[in-house]
């Protein structure tokens, strides 16, 4: 489990795009570095990110080691009805974690 900071408006206007900001606390070890003994440090990154709203896909991102440590992701969503925004990210070990937020449409 990693720490996630999620920033979304609680209340939005129908059909109007709003910004979602996400900060994931993760080292994003690139697999390019070596430790003090000269041994390669194994790659450990979040390699995929999927955002859904009420089960419908908003955005899917494939992440590579070039994404900086503690990945910050920001994008926009437009919704017609109240519901739940779910963000699922998967790391190299296949561990998936989901962060959710409730959105109310005014």
């Amino acid at each position, binding site marked *: 489990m990693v720490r996630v900071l999620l920033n979304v408006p609680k209340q939005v206007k129908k059909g*109007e*795009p*709003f910004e979602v900001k996400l900060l994931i606390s993760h080292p994003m070890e*690139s697999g*390019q*570095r*070596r430790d003090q003994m000269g041994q*390669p440090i194994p790659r450990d990154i979040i390699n995929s990110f999927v955002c*859904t*709203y009420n089960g*419908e*896909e*908003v*955005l*899917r*991102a*494939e*992440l*590579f*080691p*070039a*994404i*900086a*440590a503690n*990945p*910050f*992701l*920001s*994008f*926009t*969503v*437009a*919704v017609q009805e109240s519901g739940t925004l779910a963000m699922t990210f998967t790391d190299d070990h296949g561990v998936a974690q989901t962060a959710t937020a409730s959105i109310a449409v005014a």
Partner: protein
Amino acid sequence: MMRRRFLVLGGAGLIVPLAPVRTHATPAQVAALINELVGEAPLRDGRVKLDMPVMVENGNSVGMTVSVDAPVGEVRSIDVFAEGNPLPRVLGLRFGPRAGAARFATRIRLATSQTVIAVAKLADGSCWRDSVDLLVTLAACVDD
């Protein structure tokens, strides 16, 4: 004859692991990746916008915003490539029906001064690119 062929294959297998472990991507490699992505469609400049600082002090974390000047429903994918990083691919994006706009922001690593390229594929099959030449003062640490 078979035995000789076996020897040749065995020899080739031995040589491959000796290739340098750490190599940087080359513009040719990135061009090949983009070719694979774009296929037969013409690749034109415009429509897609890659927003990055031209002077970068710290390559470990560089803000990047990529956006496409088209309704989000018409954008099939956006891909970002870095020519001077050890691995050329940076980001691959696909938008679903709920996305508000074809825009995405994140922070990326840059190993050296280089050209970063964004390629957007639209639903009508057209492909668009934008690139930024950056100067990186402190490169993203590769060795330690």
